């Protein structure tokens, strides 16, 4: 498409400026979750002056911040996958169970001493993709509601993991695999590196190609997307497979961390944390725009909150309660009606409320 010859350069520039991305709007989406995270960290600093202190021992950094990052890793991986599923208007309840299955597959393969590490990892990841493809097929080709379709694997998946483990907690002694969960590189724990790598690669895959846009288009309006030539079924299949892949990676990290596979408890209820993180990051469950960065910030908010509770000296039992209240607040802030009510009570909020 050639642009028609402009009358004057200034006019042309003025126009291009008009048509350039609205930077104000895009940054506003990041404002609230980031502000919440910074606020939480600031509270931590007030409670404990040494909160931001990092120490360096045995080639590895230690400190509360590193701890938060390390603990967030599995949920952050799940949240990256969940962001895409939610962007298409779906939901994946099975990721916790998929973590357990991937962990059990790897653990049992590791018992075979002569198998190379790469093969074990590949098998784990393939399991996750296969589980995701099952979910995706049910959702996009059999047109089963996402909640129900993934509920199947959520219920049956844990049974399958127990079957693989024959009801035992399967432990293994493989330092190379365990390194995935507890090792470190350039001072940072390896799970953190895995999250960074996954985040970076996903961002490249989604934003340097049209894939991310297609996912958003399908999530906003699947019919219209099909009408303009996007294969909406394939897109949905992809996001569930992607979520399965992320879940398998998270499952391997947690198995490597404890050097064993516990089919009952691996990844238990983590799907809910992942969904929550994506919602806190500002995504609508009905689908549409997504931001991996915001989802990861959502995860960090949840994890910092738990840390704050511990640092503040409150008993850990308040953890869930405070989490629930925060979630309710975030939910209400997402409701148009609540914002309108709020802005009529607090006229000054009107500007902020629109953000």
């Amino acid at each position, binding site marked *: *498409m050639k*642009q*028609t010859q402009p009358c004057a350069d200034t006019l042309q520039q003025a*126009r*291009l400026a*008009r*048509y*350039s*991305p*609205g930077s104000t*709007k895009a940054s506003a989406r990041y404002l609230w979750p980031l502000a919440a995270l910074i606020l939480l960290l600031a509270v931590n600093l007030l409670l404990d002056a040494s909160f931001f202190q990092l120490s360096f021992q045995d080639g590895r950094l230690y400190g509360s911040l590193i701890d938060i990052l390390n603990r967030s890793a599995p949920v952050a991986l799940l949240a990256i996958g969940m962001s895409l599923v939610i962007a298409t208007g779906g939901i994946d309840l099975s990721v916790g169970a998929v973590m357990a299955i991937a962990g059990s597959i790897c653990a049992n393969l590791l018992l075979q001493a002569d198998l190379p590490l790469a093969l074990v990892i590949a098998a784990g990841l393939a399991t996750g993709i296969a589980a995701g493809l099952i979910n995706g097929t049910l959702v996009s080709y059999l047109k089963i509601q996402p909640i129900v379709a993934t509920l199947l694997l959520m219920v049956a998946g844990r049974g399958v993991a127990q079957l693989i483990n024959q009801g035992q907690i399967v432990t293994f002694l493989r330092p190379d695999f365990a390194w995935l969960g507890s090792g470190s590189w350039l001072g940072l724990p390896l799970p953190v590196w895995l999250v960074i790598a996954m985040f970076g690669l996903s961002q490249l895959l989604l934003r*340097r*190609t*049209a*894939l991310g*846009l*297609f996912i*958003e*288009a399908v999530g*906003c*309006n699947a*019919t*219209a*997307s*099909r*009408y*303009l*030539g*996007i*294969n909406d079924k394939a897109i949905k299949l992809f996001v569930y497979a992607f979520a399965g892949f992320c879940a398998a990676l998270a499952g391997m990290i947690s198995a490597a961390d404890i050097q064993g596979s516990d089919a009952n408890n691996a990844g238990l209820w983590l799907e809910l944390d992942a969904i929550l993180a994506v919602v806190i990051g500002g995504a609508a469950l009905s689908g*549409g*725009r997504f931001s991996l960065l915001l989802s990861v910030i959502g995860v960090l908010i949840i994890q910092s909150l738990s840390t704050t509770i511990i640092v503040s000296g409150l008993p850990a039992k308040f953890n869930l309660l405070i989490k629930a209240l925060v979630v309710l607040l975030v939910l209400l802030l997402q409701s148009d009606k609540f914002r309108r009510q709020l802005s009529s009570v607090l006229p000054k909020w009107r500007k902020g409320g629109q953000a």
Partner: protein
Amino acid sequence: MTTPSLVLELKQVCKHFPGVKALQNVDLRLFAGEVHALLGENGAGKSTLIKVMTGALAKSSGDIYFNGQQCHFASPAAAQRAGISTVYQEVNLLPNLSVAQNLFLGHEPRRFGLIQHKKMQQQAQQLLLRFKLNIDVTAPLAQYSVAVQQLIAIARGVAMSAKVLVLDEPTASLDSSEVQMLFDVMRQLREQGVAIVFITHFLEQVYQISDRITVLRNGSKVGEYLTADLPRSQLIEAMLGKELQQLTQQQAATAVAKQAEPLLVLQQISVKGSLSDISLTVAKGQAVGLAGLLGSGRTEVCRAVYGVDVLSGGEIQFGGKTLTLQQPADAIKAGIALCPEERKTEGIIGPLSIRENIMLALQARRGWWRYLPVKQQQQLAAFYIDKLQIATPDADKPIEQLSGGNQQKVILARWLAINPQLLILDEPTRGIDIGAHAEIVLLIKSLCQQGMSLLVTSSELEELVAFAGKVVVLRDRQKVTELSGDNMTAQHIMQAIAEG
């Protein structure tokens, strides 16, 4: 019957939507015991008037009197309680409940607080027998045809002792025997003193059943007439207005005179349940109009050619080759594009920006891997915003915030960007404000002149006549006739639609 009394009166009612005056100073008088036909073309304001009357929309100004008292209905439920029931074209009942439950929802006969199912079923059976409907009332509503569902909806309105019954195009999906069944019921109700508002496209039916006619055009009342005093030709003139002549004179200029080679050939295509044996040809550079009422098959032809519905018979040839279409992507690959009638649900991708809405079809054709650089996207958007004069401050505004006309321009831009051989426009001007309306008609005309083949449906016949070289008339999912040259006038089309 004594002298008819005024039941419902609307005085100087106005309704404004942002940018559109849907109703301007409309009066309507409804007498007890009469069938009052409310006529007008699509966009004349009939449905807005109905919605204002029944509390589904709030009026901007004007007064409504019910039984002589000024009143205001806050919701359809409030209007219903007062005695105004509406039966919409798309039946608004609950397909999952039984027929009896649908009839009595909220009014079930009870004893000791418990619903008496047996008694409810008996009453339902009796009620429906008055409508000469003998069906199993315990079966879910979904099992019955639209015609029966419509009668049930009317029966519900009557059971709630309606004084005013509004029927919004109830005959659109009925066959002739069902229509007679409905008319019997309407006559029966008229004798009982119910005032009936009847909206339809079928002029024949207007003369068969109605006592009084109010005609709307462009949101204003043209006049109120007694049916017996109004010849058909005058009625059509009242509905279509004088502009018709001016527009029809232009058409000779745009019609493609030469015999061009055919681009799209439909050979007796059928789609199960929605189309049977339709054949038509679109030549290269020709604009073909599809006329017909809602449900006549015009949208279904568009869907079949675009691969949304899969054929159950017949063949589509495009550019000399036979097409097998499984999904829209196949049609796009062949060079066919569609601007759908349901712009909001099938056309725009609301939260995405204008830029993204314009570039998506091009991107979908390039595939997901070869992403169109953002700079090129911006240029593309800027180019079409200028060319089609899309009114927006910037290209990154979500498309859902634009007016209907500008949304339609964006969708046109989306297809122009991939330059299809055949562009299907399904009701391209529906729900578009007057100003943008003219612009879009001009735009379509210029596409014609540039040699793009078009297949256009529109219920605004003068519009079709204005830019089509040939009009195919559909009725009851079948092709009735094909009009071109001097025969192609709004009157002729209207006749063909009404009489077959």
